[in-house]
């Protein structure tokens, strides 16, 4: 399909449906000429259109077409390009789309995704009745600024230029070199935007006496330079992504990390644990190690964590259920074992500790407040070990100590469970120290 084509327009659909004197048809004709000059394969060309009068455009071309929601055209174009970097993707959008979808424009420019955005910038919303847009100049009268526009217009071309677009031009439908500019935009491998100013003959031009001359004066008054503003090729995102990841292509993905049962558990009933500590003190990882050790011993385990939205501050709770049979419900109402390790966690679980029955066990650090409870309370003597300052290890130590008392499964399984971790040596030492941990007093 790469034979030289005279036109990409579908003759059966013409003429264009635009108002007499509207610039949209001119832009489409210039775009068609630019595509023909580059001999773009129509089977690899996707026109992505936005909402508004310019959104009617794709229907007049015999190419792939994607007509989407208002302001989102750049996101579809990005998805198309990421999935198939061989595509030539051209976005046709108005100044309205640049307003509602400005966030996408900025980020597409930053990313330098290889799409070409042609902005049909007629300074107002033509389809819905001449309301003001982000590009409406100061003092302009529109249906929603009947006494004149008070807002300063968005510099569409300038916005993408400062955010990394590799080709940017501002021009108008009166520019005799518009085809050349569009050719250069299409040739650029990365993100290109051509901001084409034009007359809306239905609304903006008659209401504001906008002419070719007045348009040029408006640009000057606003300090908006015209012509090619940026032409600085840099790596296109879809290609850069593939190049960056070429080294890991073919590596096995997300394999199962199976736990082989190599130890024998003695636990013959469900045993639930509540770890209560502070964020950053390895509460979740200690609880996870306890659960993995159980699975290595042939038990079934669940882990349910609770924490606030903060990261290195606040409480951290973890509920563990160990069982000789599969576990369905993962909640723990009345834990058999509580590891009460810091004030933050304690505040969250004090009421639960108070309600524990006889037979339950609470292993507390001397730091946390004491709570009236019928449960057995064991105060752990971290100070009597070399681990007094290593509070990050206390949860694992307490778990090892409680494991010894409950005899749920062999401590060797817990050692194996932590052995695979990154900080294995210290964790193994913590298990051993915890296993031998004494009570205060």
């Amino acid at each position, binding site marked *: 399909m790469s034979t030289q084509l005279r036109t990409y327009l579908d003759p059966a659909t013409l003429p264009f449906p635009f108002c007499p004197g509207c610039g949209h048809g001119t832009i489409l004709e210039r775009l068609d000429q630019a595509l023909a000059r580059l001999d773009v394969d129509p089977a690899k060309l996707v026109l992505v259109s936005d909402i508004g009068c310019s959104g009617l455009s794709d229907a007049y071309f015999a190419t792939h077409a994607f007509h989407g929601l208002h302001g989102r055209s750049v*996101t579809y174009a990005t998805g198309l390009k990421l999935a198939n970097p061989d595509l030539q993707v051209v976005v046709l959008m108005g100044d309205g789309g640049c307003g509602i979808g400005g966030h996408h424009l900025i980020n597409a420019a930053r990313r330098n995704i290889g799409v070409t955005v042609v902005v049909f910038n007629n300074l107002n919303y033509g389809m819905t009745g001449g309301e003001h847009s982000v590009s409406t100049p100061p003092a302009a009268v529109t249906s929603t600024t009947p006494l004149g526009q008070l807002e300063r217009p968005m510099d569409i071309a300038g916005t993408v230029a400062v955010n990394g677009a590799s080709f940017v031009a501002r021009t108008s439908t009166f520019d005799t070199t518009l085809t050349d500019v569009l050719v250069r935009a299409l040739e650029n491998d990365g993100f290109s935007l051509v901001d084409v100013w034009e007359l809306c003959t239905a609304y903006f031009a008659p209401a504001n006496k906008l002419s070719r001359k007045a348009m040029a004066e408006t640009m000057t008054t606003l300090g908006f330079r015209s012509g090619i503003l940026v032409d600085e090729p840099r790596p296109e995102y879809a290609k850069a992504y593939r190049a960056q990841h070429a080294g890991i292509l073919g590596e096995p993905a997300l394999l199962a990390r199976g736990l082989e049962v190599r130890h024998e558990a003695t636990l013959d009933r469900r045993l639930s644990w509540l770890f209560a500590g502070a964020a950053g003190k390895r509460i979740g990882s200690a609880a996870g190690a306890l659960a993995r050790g159980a699975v290595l011993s042939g038990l079934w385990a669940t882990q349910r964590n609770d924490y606030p939205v903060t990261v290195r501050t606040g409480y951290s709770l973890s509920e563990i259920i160990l069982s000789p049979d599969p576990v369905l419900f993962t909640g723990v109402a009345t834990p058999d074992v509580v590891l009460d390790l810091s004030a933050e966690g304690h505040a969250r679980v004090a009421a639960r500790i108070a309600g524990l029955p006889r037979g339950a066990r609470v292993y507390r650090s001397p730091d946390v407040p004491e709570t009236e409870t019928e449960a057995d309370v064991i105060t752990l003597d971290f100070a009597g070990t070399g681990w007094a300052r290593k509070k990050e290890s206390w949860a694992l130590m307490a778990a090892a100590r409680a494991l010894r008392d409950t005899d749920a499964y062999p401590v060797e399984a817990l050692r194996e469970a932590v052995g695979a971790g990154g900080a294995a040596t210290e964790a193994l030492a913590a298990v051993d120290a915890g296993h031998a941990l004494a009570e205060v007093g």
Partner: protein
Amino acid sequence: MRELIDGAEAIARAALHAGCTFFSGYPITPATPILLHLIRELPKVGGTAIQSEDEIASMGFCIGAAMAGARVMTATSGPGLSLYSESVGLAIMGEVPMVIVDAQRMGPATGGATTVAQGDIQFLRWGTSGGYPVIVLAPADVAECYALTRRAFDLAERFRVPVFVATDKETVLGKATVDAASWDEVPVRQRPTAPAGGSFLPYRADPPDGVPLMSPLGGVHLVRFTTSTHDERGRLTRSPVEVDRLNRRLAAKVEDHADEIAMVRADLQSDADTLVVSYGITALAAREAIASARETGLAVSGLTVQSLWPVPEGELRAAMRGVDRVLVPELNLGQYRLEVERLAPDGVQVVGIHRVDGELITPDQIFDAIGAHESPEVA
């Protein structure tokens, strides 16, 4: 061999095994781990995963990629789902095969980021303009996260419609022990694609299926995709005949195949007075409660709904036959109960058990409700 694994990893692995080649998401608790897994893993299989600038862009990227031939997934939670809304409509209108994971957290608005909930159940079904149907699957545990994500990919290809996996914070972030035998390798079909030769109309769909064959943008056929009401060629139309045909087809292609989509886990007893209808994580508490009730000599039935939308009406009606009372535990103030109520035979009492305090409904709560003679509604 067993694994201690969370729902996020199960979902990501299912996506990889289902042939997912494109993922885009925006960081949000509790869906973020799915994004992280696929950012790392998808490039290994030649796919692309990208963090977008916002949730609207996540959907836009996915829809564009899907129409270029990729198999796509995204994952979010309530606030993100709210931003997905307009694009869900686009995916329905343009008939985009895609999987959307909703890891539910407590709403409304930002709500509780790290708090479990099941508050999106009606929103998932009715969350975009026009009211046209989508498919929603709800895994109860980690193993089902894997199976139902695979099923979601298959249904997305089958019906060219967004398929949601409605899970929750506890299931996605909580770890469970899964036996190797429990991973259900649900088959996932290849994309039904138009043959290379001959004429092609992008939205021509023949009865009885009503699902058009696909051809990628950039493929052998010129494809016209549109957000607007269109004819078979993908051109805007206002012809009442064509408009009516399209809209009815968009509804019928899902609703007429409700039986094919339906997935439930029925555990019925013929002499039961009470039926417990549950879904998602609440089903685990329901199953424990039912087992406990039976141990005390009570006859009680359970129905876990895995395919929430379209509502498996036949299965629900059959399960309700002969019972006096239906309990519907939900982590909301009664959403799916509305569907159960409209299907309940005359005289059958439908009772909700609700929790919106951030805690899970416990087996004890459901057990007590099963045993109660009077309406045990928990506010």
